[in-house]
């Protein structure tokens, strides 16, 4: 259960979030939609405490993120997988080492056999061949890098997955592959997901509920059907462009 209560955040003179209330229930997949540069990623980083709000509170599993001690915050973060926009792989490490760093349980990460198995397993989850493990991020394509990023995020068996623009910058074929990966992982691993995206089509495909972030606030929130039926002109304007194309499923 993730709760954001009246979050405000500004960078210098720029107000990014202005009283955002947002809630994610256990087991569901919520898509956070909005135009680029509206602060979706900023909102996502509040959830695992990478950014602290100027005002408001973030609660995850009934724990107030801002008030946690270092150890507790570190433990909480290891339960939250974060998939970064461009993978954010450690480029000095091989794919194997990258994914191994994702194994957040200390005892497990020392067990070489477990690590080797887990890395292979995670690569398998994201449909990458085991040979990839010995490559460096620079040797991979954008889509593969994203998938390695996903493998790293799931390696620690998180209960939450935060997806930051999983399909941005990818061609439609790769974007579809990633979208189906999101769906698959949410189903298989039973995790609670928050997907930040500006790709309306993908959002409607993977999400149980969709929230629209605009002008620093949640403009609308509901199931895909509810959102489609919304009479709010701002919502309609945002959805229109993409929804004229038929959705895959």
């Amino acid at each position: 259960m993730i709760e954001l209560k009246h979050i405000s955040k500004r960078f210098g003179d720029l107000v990014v979030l202005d009283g955002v209330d947002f809630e994610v229930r256990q087991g569901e997949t919520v898509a956070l939609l909005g135009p680029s540069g509206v602060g979706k990623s900023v909102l996502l980083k509040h959830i695992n405490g990478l950014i602290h709000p100027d005002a408001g509170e973030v609660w995850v599993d009934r724990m107030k993120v801002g008030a946690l001690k270092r150890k507790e915050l570190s433990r909480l973060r290891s339960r939250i997988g974060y998939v970064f926009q461009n993978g954010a792989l450690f480029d000095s490490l091989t794919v194997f080492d990258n994914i191994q760093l994702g194994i957040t349980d200390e005892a497990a990460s020392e067990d070489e056999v477990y690590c080797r198995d887990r890395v292979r397993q995670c690569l398998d989850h994201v449909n990458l061949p085991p040979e990839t493990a010995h490559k460096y991020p620079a040797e991979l394509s954008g889509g593969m890098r994203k998938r390695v990023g996903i493998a790293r995020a799931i390696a620690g068996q998180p209960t939450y997955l935060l997806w930051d623009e999983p399909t941005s910058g990818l061609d439609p074929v790769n974007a579809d592959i990633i979208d189906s990966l999101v769906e698959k992982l949410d189903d298989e691993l039973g995790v609670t997901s928050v997907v930040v995206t500006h790709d309306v089509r993908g959002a409607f495909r993977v999400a149980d509920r969709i929230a629209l972030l605009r002008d620093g606030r949640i403009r609308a929130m509901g199931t895909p059907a509810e959102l489609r039926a919304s009479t709010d002109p701002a919502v309609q304007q945002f959805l229109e462009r993409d929804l004229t194309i038929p959705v895959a499923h």
Partner: protein
Amino acid sequence: MESHSVTLDVRRLVGRFSLRSTSHVGRVSYLLLEMARAVPEWRIWMPRMFEQASNVGYGSLFIVGLTAGFAGAVTSLQAGYQFTGSIPVYFAAGVIVESIILELGPVLTALVLAGRIGARYAAELGTMRVTEQIDALESLGRSSVSHLVLPRVIAGTLMLPVLVVFADLVGIGAGWVAAKGSLEMTNADFTYGAQYFFKTWDLWYSMIKAFAFGLAITIVPCYMGFSTQQGAEGVGRSTTAAVVSASVLILFLDAALAKVLLKT
């Protein structure tokens, strides 16, 4: 009109400058605190430290040796140029050895390394910051300070005295050879002069300086790299800022340490 009033508003400029400096001080202190807290996590920083240290140590040997060698030879030649007539030749040996141990060895090595590893650290960490690698590390519940900052700082601080010893050796050696060539100094003259003016404290002072410079040229660039913003340009900016401020800090520390530690 409005832009005029802004450019002329000195109070605002001063205010903004002092706010910014103060916040730098605050964030550096916070980083230092985080580093102190990360020290017990030696299982994490130790292996990475060795990797960085061997990189810094062996990677810098050539350039440090080259710099110190030329510095030693030039000091020797210039001492020969200035010490003419009535001044005994062994004085030149004392000048060469003392100036290399006290000043040229530590300072030149630190300045060279500020360019070499300072720029490297700032660029590495800056790139990691803008490509969200640092966030990624944090998001995995891992401390970026113990994974990234502490290994670099400890490696640099450990390796700088080592490199200064090497620089002193090469510098004195080159000075010796040059002195023999140009000043017609015998080995006995050189040994006599070198020993005559040497005090044990000089060498410790050199090592203390190297240690302080090591901290300066690693902490400042790490901090600059960590606070990088806005993409490739930001990385460039923090790299430049790192090298410039580390170099300035070296010169400042040089003066401060001379004042504090060399009571004559």
